[in-house]
């Protein structure tokens, strides 16, 4: 029987939240089949991943470590998405933040953490923010497609960092490894206990609270919501969409920049090549997070923890079961695939085409979104 898509009328709240959950489950299922095909028992692999990440205190601390940059980047991406600015440049903004924070250290300054950390945070936020400002400005002034500009600028940022760690900032005693020397104590973020969990986690949680207030409660957040919902109405309401876009991207990039600072100052303690995992970079994972989290700050925190678990679990099975680390990437990709598919299905319904049936209607639910008067199949 041929199938076909039919627009749904009511977009249900339930589906909105059901889709991410089901998507994750389906992704695990499909990946499980792949694992099975390569001769691994998926159930034990997943069990191992899960217990390592969430069942041990060491594992969970590592989950928090991974979640820190994910939350920061995810919040930034979420805010931009809210305004329908498709910022996929968190990875580049993260790199520029890390670079700017490092620049503070590279001045040779060796002060107290009370001064150095705020200075590095500020530099990172500005670095990431300004980097994000470029595509925002190009969009506002020249209407350049931000998907392309933000993506391309990621490569520039990564190469920019590479230039410094291979060149001027390279530690002379690093035996040729591309990295800076280790940061002085004052430039290192405080860690909790003997774990690698650092103060950056606190920044991330504070940022989530702030973003919640901004997005859901503030008048500026209202402007962003209106602009995302209907730009013409925003103009009519006297909102300055261009200025807001610039501000949103400053904030979005600033948050990703902070993530970069937290990584170099809290984890790596130096600037080096893969500050963001090569297989599944934080800045790109953040896009999946923002999408799964339904543009909700608490959702971002929750999903970041899950994704953090995926990273940690992935690393574990890489070691214990000799599975490729790319398993993380595969699961992430599958999740995104199913969420996007699920989002389509939550706006459309699948119908088996039998032609026009000649039986009385049996009731059921409607099938298309009306927008007020007689407008139909708006697709939006």
């Amino acid at each position, binding site marked *: 029987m041929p199938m076909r898509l039919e627009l749904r009328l009511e977009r249900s709240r339930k589906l909105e939240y059901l889709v991410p959950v089901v998507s994750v489950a389906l992704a695990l299922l499909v990946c499980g089949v792949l694992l099975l095909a390569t001769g691994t028992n998926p159930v034990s692999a997943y069990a191992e991943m899960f217990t390592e990440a969430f069942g041990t205190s060491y594992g969970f601390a590592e989950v928090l470590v991974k979640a820190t940059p994910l939350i920061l980047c995810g919040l930034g991406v979420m805010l931009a998405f809210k305004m329908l600015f498709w910022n996929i440049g968190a990875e580049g903004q993260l790199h520029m933040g890390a670079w700017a924070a490092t620049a503070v250290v590279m001045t040779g300054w060796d002060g107290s953490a009370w001064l150095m950390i705020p200075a590095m945070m500020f530099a990172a936020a500005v670095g990431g923010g300004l980097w994000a400002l470029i595509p925002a400005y190009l969009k506002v002034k020249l209407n350049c497609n931000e998907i392309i500009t933000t993506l391309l600028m990621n490569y520039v940022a990564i190469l920019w960092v590479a230039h410094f760690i291979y060149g001027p900032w390279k530690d002379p005693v690093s035996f040729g490894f591309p990295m800076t020397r280790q940061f002085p104590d004052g430039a290192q973020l405080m860690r909790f206990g003997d774990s690698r969990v650092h103060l950056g986690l606190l920044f991330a949680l504070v940022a989530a609270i702030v973003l919640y207030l901004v997005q859901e409660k503030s*008048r500026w957040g209202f402007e962003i919501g209106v602009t995302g919902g209907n730009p013409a109405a925003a103009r009519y*309401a*006297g909102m300055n969409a261009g200025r807001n876009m610039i501000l949103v991207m400053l904030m979005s990039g600033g948050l990703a920049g902070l993530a970069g600072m937290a990584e170099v100052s809290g984890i790596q303690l130096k600037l080096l090549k893969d500050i963001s995992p090569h297989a599944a970079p934080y800045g790109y994972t953040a896009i999946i997070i923002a999408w799964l989290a339904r543009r909700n700050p608490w959702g971002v925190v929750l999903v970041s923890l899950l994704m953090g678990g995926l990273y940690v679990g992935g690393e574990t099975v890489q070691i214990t079961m000799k599975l490729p680390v790319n398993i993380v990437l595969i699961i992430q990709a599958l999740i995104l695939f199913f969420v996007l598919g699920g989002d389509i299905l939550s706006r459309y319904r699948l119908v088996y085409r039998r032609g026009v049936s000649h039986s009385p209607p049996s009731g059921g639910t409607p099938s298309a979104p009306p927008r*007020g008067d007689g407008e139909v199949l708006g697709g939006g």
Partner: protein
Amino acid sequence: MTKARVAVSMEGIVKRFPGVIANDRVDLELLEGEIHTLLGENGAGKSTLMNVLTGIYRADEGTLAVRGTPVQLRTPKDAIDLGIGMVHQSFKLVQTHTVTENIVLGLGRGLAPVKLSEAEEKVRELSERYGLQVDPGARIWQLSIGEQQRVEILKILFRGARILLLDEPTAVLTPQEADELFVTLKAMRAKGHAIVFISHKLDEVMAISDRITVLRGGKNVGTVRTRDTDPQDLSNLMVGREIRFERFPGEEVRGDEILEVVELSASNDRGLEALKEISFTVSAGEILGFAGVAGNGQEELAEVITGLRTPTDGSIRLKGRDMTGASPKQVIDAGVSYVPADRHGVATVGDLSLTHNSVLRRYREKKFARGPFLHLAAAVDYARRLIKEFNIMTPGEGTAVRTLSGGNLQKVILAREITTHHELLVVMSATRGLDVGATEYVRETLDEHRKKGAAIVLISEDLEELLSLSDRIAVLFHGEVMGILDAEGADIETLGLMMAGRKLAEAS
């Protein structure tokens, strides 16, 4: 005359939305060769019923039979296969494609392309047969709204529709275009098509339809033959009370000059001159009406006054203050309220709640602010007040305005703008799509407002409305003011001539 065959019969149709029953056991029978009007207040369920008939909504209960065969409609495609087609109020045409391309869009089967030249021939033939004049090769953006509507009608005729549903087709038409549409409708009737016509304009309804079905609160409260009824009966059926029609401005309450526009010029979106050296003033306690056929600069005029469009020349003063080229925000802050013509596209955000939409232009006011935060409780109270005062039909202030009926959405916008403290109110097509009761209410409100000393610019294509409300009427033609005359005793003939491009001095 042979007995007309039944084209469609709907029985016991029930359609529920969260919190509302839009159609409550509605029966409706359409005959071949009749024009059947659906009448009812805003939110009575007219559009919903038609959407059920085109497979856009699925009825919760009830049965549907087309030409005697019970059917189940799942999608608009099913409806089209059965010869049912609908023209919606806002058109879905690809602006940069030609008329023919739009008409055949989505038709070709599998990989077999539609032969454009053949299609064009058929379009031409159809347009002649039904008096739907339009150039098949023209691109949509070059067409007026009236012509675009013809394309929509051609589109469904092309697909072989014999049952045509038109949802408020005349709301967007000039009187002349409406007359042309009626000629087409009569031609279709003569060919045995069944036509459903929705309109709030009773004179049209009386003139064109064979039978009328009145919906009230989602229920069918009666189907009558047009020749057995009159507008007063219909109003009573619709609203359950009598409606009066009158001219409002009574006493002079004119105060200070509020708005002064001097030799204002502006271009339209395509960069062509849309306003040419327009000058006029509006005083407190005065309604200045702008008449004219759509597309003669009305929209641009409203936008220039409200800061949404920058003038190319001339000046605008509000209470003596220069506002030329001010931003929309500055204009709002200076006390200018604005009801734009485009409800969905400009005046509201469909996915946001009624509460949020009710403070769309007011959220900066102290009343709705708590420091940097939105004072949500105050906004909710305000939205509730609007719902009550303006009798907006909705399950509650939390619903997304996307789900409101056309007329109720208009009420939300009007309510918001009127209740905002302002020096000047700019209103485009105030009562378009409003039912008789709501129209009366809006007119009363505007008049009351005027009496309290508001200055109002009322832009409308509805001469009756302009004559009943305005103190003075200016006529726009090709971006120029043909003249301004007192509404009291203004004669329609003169106005008509001016709308066709005669200057006042020549016309009278």
